């Protein structure tokens, strides 16, 4: 029954495009499940149906009369849409249409009860793949008929089932947390976790088998044909498998989070008092908070009731936090790789870290280039000490060959010549240029550097 309830949940979430109202779907499927479990019972009284509607439609109404009216509306709706009907005794039955619909969905979601079914499907899909790797046409047919229609829906279904089980476990533990004693709660948690972890282990094992498909595809001779259709299908298939593996990983992370809370329950005994006080504190805060009305309001219509602000009681201060960025940074070199801080913009944590990383890399490169250029300048100064005249074009080519970085050579030339001019060296440029055969697209004017004249 518990599993059927789960199916009911999944059913109502997933097939709303066929049954327009999710709650209608729950009512119909509840009747269907009940019929499966009590095969003798084929019809229901109107009161029974209304009770069922009341169970699923949780609508806030001021009076019982209004609630009765709402339930009646829903009942009439179900009748009007021909999901249910009255038999000759005026009792309610599911229509043939509903029965067929439910049967279809039941078949569709039934495999969720068996996470290991995927292994069997995988075996058969692998065999057919092996036989379909001789040519692209067979492979395309395999992809359409086996992968897209058989394996992929199964993987998707199993993943949804696992996600659903985790969500259900959370809901269940949240409920039990409120009612059970801690010792009982711990026992209950461990028991439930064990079932879930066992299910996930099975699913992980099944998913591991998916690697075999990737391997077969990587080794097939079709790779040698460079056929665009094959390449596209292969990529799409691998992407699909990666996607579901990622989803499975996420379920693992979610289970870990629940485990963490369960583990903490051992420490939590005795902290219940804090929770009780927290509850009192919160309700007290709610009671004592006041609205500050807006004067001359000009709100948009959809914000009509929105108050400008509220005031909290005296004993509850607003949450405050440090938020201060000084005018200048004390350690500028630490910030060199951090372009945002230079502008001192305040941005949220969600800013684009990738751009920051690129900017940081560029900055590192610039620093490295600057360091090397300084080295070449020192080198040139030493050479010029020993000679009266230096052929800068040769020096440039040496710098270019040695660093193998045209950007650095150009920036370096600019910087070195500027420095030398400042230091009163004579820089003489001719109309002829020099080219290094290794860099045929890069030329430099013939430049001579001469020591400063004593005059």
């Amino acid at each position, binding site marked *: 029954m518990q599993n059927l309830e789960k199916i009911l949940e999944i059913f109502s979430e997933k097939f709303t495009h066929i049954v327009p109202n999710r709650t209608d779907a729950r009512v119909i499927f509840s009747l269907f499940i009940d019929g499966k479990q009590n095969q003798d019972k084929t019809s229901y009284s109107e009161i029974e149906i209304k009770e069922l509607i009341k169970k699923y439609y949780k609508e806030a109404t001021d009076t019982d009369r209004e609630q009765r009216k709402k339930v009646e509306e829903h009942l009439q709706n179900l009748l009007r849409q021909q999901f249910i009907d009255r038999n000759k005794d005026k009792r309610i039955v599911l229509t043939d249409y509903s029965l067929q619909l439910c049967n279809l969905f039941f078949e569709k979601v039934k495999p969720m009860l068996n996470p290991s079914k995927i292994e069997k499907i995988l075996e058969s899909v692998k065999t057919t793949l092996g036989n379909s790797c001789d040519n692209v046409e067979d492979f395309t047919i395999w992809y359409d008929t086996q992968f897209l229609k058989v394996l992929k829906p199964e993987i998707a279904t199993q993943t949804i089932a696992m996600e659903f089980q985790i969500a259900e476990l959370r809901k269940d533990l949240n409920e039990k947390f409120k009612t059970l004693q801690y010792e009982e709660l711990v026992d209950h948690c461990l028991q439930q976790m064990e079932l879930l972890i066992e299910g996930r282990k099975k699913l992980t094992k099944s998913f591991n088998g998916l690697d075999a498909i990737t391997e077969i595809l990587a080794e097939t001779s079709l790779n040698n044909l460079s056929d665009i259709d094959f390449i596209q299908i292969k990529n799409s298939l691998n992407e699909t498998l990666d996607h579901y593996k990622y989803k499975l990983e996420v379920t693992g992370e979610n289970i870990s989070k629940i485990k963490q809370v369960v583990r903490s329950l051992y420490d939590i005994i005795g902290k219940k008092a804090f929770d009780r*006080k927290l509850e*009192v504190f919160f309700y007290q805060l*709610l009671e004592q*908070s006041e609205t500050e009305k807006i004067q001359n309001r000009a709100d948009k219509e959809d914000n009509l009731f929105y108050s400008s602000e509220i005031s909290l009681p005296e004993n509850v201060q607003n949450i405050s*936090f440090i938020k201060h960025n000084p005018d200048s940074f*004390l350690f500028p070199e630490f910030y060199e790789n951090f372009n945002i801080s230079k502008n001192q913009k305040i941005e949220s944590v969600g800013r684009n870290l990738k751009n920051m990383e690129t900017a940081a890399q560029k900055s590192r490169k610039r620093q490295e280039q600057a360091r090397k250029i300084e080295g070449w300048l020192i080198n040139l100064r030493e050479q010029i000490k020993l000679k009266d005249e230096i052929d800068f074009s040769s020096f440039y080519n040496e710098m270019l060959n040695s660093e193998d970085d045209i950007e650095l050579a150009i920036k370096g030339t600019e910087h070195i010549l500027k420095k030398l001019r400042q230091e009163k060296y004579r820089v003489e440029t001719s109309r002829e240029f020099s080219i290094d055969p290794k860099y045929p697209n890069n030329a430099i004017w013939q430049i001579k550097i001469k020591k400063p004249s004593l005059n």
Partner: protein
Amino acid sequence: MANQDKETFLELKEHNVDRFADTDFQLRSGMHIQDYKQQSRNFHFLEDNFQELYSFYEKLYQAKLCVYQSINGKFYYLDYFEEQKSKLQKESLKPKQTLFAIFLYTLHRIEKRFSTTLSKQELVEVLNNHSKIKPHIHRLFLGEEQEDTMPTQATLLKWVSDSLKELQKLGWIHLLEDDSEQFELLPAFERVALIYQDAINNVEEIRTTNA
């Protein structure tokens, strides 16, 4: 890497020194840093250089680099030393955002202890259906208890959404990128309890005094 600046000396481990600027910027923007997605590298930088950075913030700004180990994980943040004015300024959340933070913390702690991912709609449903919460929330935000209509829903959803954005700036929650309807509660959300622990523990006393 070592740096000398008047009286303050900062020596950080070489391998992740490039995280200093971003981490410092985040901390001084009110962010709480934990081992979570984009924050992980800054978190490990803090782990590796905690003592050095603690002294740095203490000497330079009279601010305390705090670390707290909650059930869900460890987190770092900057705060004042008790009764000592820091050179860093503070800002406050608006009262309605403060109220939201306490509401969310209470809801998580009491009703949804095992749920670390919640949705905005889930919160609006609690606000509209919880018999002890609904009357007060409606009084505060809608003037009085109202039927569920588009404007009332929009009002409550706006409060929830705006507040969540503010809490995200503190690193207490994370709005999921692929679905901003859902959000994850982060370990640093436990800071709410740290801020109000005295008020919560003395709640009976306060109630008696007020009465």
